[in-house]
C-alpha cells in the first residue's frame, strides 16, 4: 500500500516534470522564432536601404554594382548561407562608407543615418538571436529532452554567425 503511494507520487511528479520540460522547450523554440523574425526584418530593411543607396546616383557605377549584387545575394540567400551573404553586404557597405567623400555624405545624410541606426539595431538583434539559439541548443542536449524526444519534429535552430567587426 505504502509503496503504491510512493510509486504514484513519483509517477505524478515525473509526469509533471516532463510536461513542464516540454513547455519550457516549446517556449524556447518560440523565442528563437521571435528573435529570428526580428533579425530577419532588420536585415531585409538593411538590404532595401543598401539598394536605395546603390541607386541613389551619389556613388560611382562600380560601387553601385557591388552593392546591388551584395544586397540581392543577401535577400535571396537561404537560411544556411544567410549569415555569409549578410556579412558580405556588411563588408560592401563598410567599404563604401570609408570611401565616401564628405560632400556625398552630407548629400545623403538621411539614408546614411538610417543605415547606421539599422546597423546598431542589427547588432542588438544578432546578440538576442544568438543567445536564444545557444540556450535552446544547450537545453536540447540534456538527456531528458533527448530521451523523451521532447523537441518533437522541431528542427535544431541554426547558429547564426555574424562577424561583429564587419558590422
Amino acid at each position: 500500500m505504502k509503496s503504491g503511494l510512493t510509486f504514484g507520487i513519483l509517477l505524478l511528479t515525473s509526469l509533471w516534470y516532463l510536461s513542464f520540460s516540454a513547455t519550457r522547450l516549446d517556449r524556447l523554440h518560440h523565442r528563437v522564432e521571435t528573435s529570428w523574425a526580428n533579425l530577419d526584418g532588420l536585415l531585409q530593411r538593411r538590404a532595401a536601404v543598401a539598394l536605395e543607396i546603390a541607386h541613389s546616383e551619389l556613388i560611382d557605377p562600380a560601387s553601385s554594382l557591388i552593392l546591388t549584387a551584395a544586397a540581392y545575394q543577401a535577400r535571396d540567400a537561404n537560411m544556411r548561407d544567410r549569415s555569409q551573404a549578410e556579412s558580405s553586404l556588411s563588408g560592401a557597405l563598410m567599404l563604401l562608407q570609408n570611401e565616401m567623400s564628405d560632400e556625398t555624405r552630407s548629400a545623403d545624410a538621411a539614408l546614411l543615418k538610417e543605415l547606421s541606426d539599422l546597423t546598431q539595431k542589427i547588432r542588438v538583434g544578432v546578440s538576442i538571436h544568438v543567445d536564444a539559439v545557444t540556450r535552446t541548443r544547450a537545453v536540447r542536449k540534456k538527456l531528458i529532452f533527448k530521451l523523451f524526444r521532447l523537441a518533437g519534429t522541431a528542427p535544431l535552430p541554426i547558429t547564426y554567425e555574424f562577424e561583429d567587426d564587419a558590422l
Partner: protein
Amino acid sequence: MPNLKPLKIGLVCPYGWDAPGGVQNHVRDLAEYLIAHGHKVSVLAPTLDEEALPEYVVSAGKPIPIPWNGAVARVLFGPIAFARVRQWIAQGDFDLLHLHEPAIPSISLLACWAAEGPMVGTFHAAAKKQKAIYAIGPILEPVIEKLNVRIAVSEAARATLSEHLETDAIVIPNGIYGSNFRNGTAQPQWSGQTIGFMGRFEEPRKGLSVLVDALSIVARFVPEIRVIIAGPGDTEEVLKKVDPQLRDRISFLGRLHEKEKADFLTSLTLYVAPNTGGESFGIILAEAMASGAAIVASDIPAFASLLGDGKYGALFANEDSTQLAHAIIDLLRDPAKRKALALAGQEHGKIFDWDTVAEQIFSVYQMAIVGGQKVGLASDNRSWTRLLGRDGQK
C-alpha cells in the same frame, strides 16, 4: 523616441517603492518617461504606504526585509504576493513586461514565472561568484530563459550574469536627467579648493575612510583644501577617526535634494568616489560628469568602464589612499588638465541621458514584441489557478 503605436507596458520593481535605491529610481524615471511619450504604463512594486503612491503604481503588498548579498533587501514573495502578481498580469492586458532584477527572490521572479509572452529583464546587480548560485542556478534557469531579451546596466552586471546564469545580455546604462545637472549653478559656499563626496558614508564599501586617509597627505600640499560630504549618516563616528587638526576641513551637508545636488556637483573642484566595491553602475559618477565636475574614482570595474579607463575621470588603485592623494594633488594643481577632464566627461556623459537610454530600451521592446503576441498567464499557471478555484482572469 519615434512616435509609434503606443504600447501597454508592465514594469515590475522588486524592491520596496518607498525606500530609496538605484533600481527604484530607474523604474520610476523609466515609467515617467514612457508615460510622457504616450505609452500606458503600470508599475507593480512592494509598498509600505498605499496612500502616497503615484497613479501608475500598483501595490503588491508590504515588503519583507531579508539579508541578501551582505545588505538588507526589501523584497516580497509568498503565496499572497504571487496571487497579486498573477492577477495584475491577467488584468493588465500588457503588450510587454519589463522585469527588473528577476534573479532575486522577489515579485519580478514571480512575474517571470507566472507570465508568458514578450518579456524583457534588466539585471542591475554585480556580485562576485557565490557558492549558493550553484544551488539556485538550476531553479532560476528555466525561469530566466523565458525572457526574450536580457539587459545589463553595466559590463560588470553583464559579467555577473554570464558567470552566474551562463547567459549573455545587452548593455544599456542607467539613465539620468542630464539637463538638470548641466544647468546647476555654482554656489560660493561649495566652491574654492573643494573635494566632494556623496552617499551613505557609514557603509564601509563607500570608501570614505580611504578619502579621509588621503586627506592628511593632500592637506600638506594644498593647505586650503576642504572636503564636503553629502549624504545621511552619523557624522561623529567619522570625525572621531580624523586627525584633530584636520577636522575643520571636513563639513557635512546631510541628504541633498535633486536641485541642490546639481548645484553641489557643479560647484566642486573635484568629485571623489573612493568606493571599494559592490558597485554595479555608479549613477553618481554619471551625474557628476553631467554637472561638469572633474572626477577621481577608484578603479573598481564599474567605475573604470564608466570613466572610459581614465579618459573621462582620473582613476586610482582601489583602497590605495596614497595614490588617491597623488591624483587629487595632481588635478588640484593643474587647472588646465582638470578642465579638460571635466569637459571630456561632460561630453561623454550624454550617453546616460534618458533620451538616449530610453530610446535604446524602447528599441529592445520593439524587438521583443515582433511576434505580436500579448502577455498572458503561462499555461501551467492557468490550470493551477483554475484548480484552486481562483479566477485571476476577469
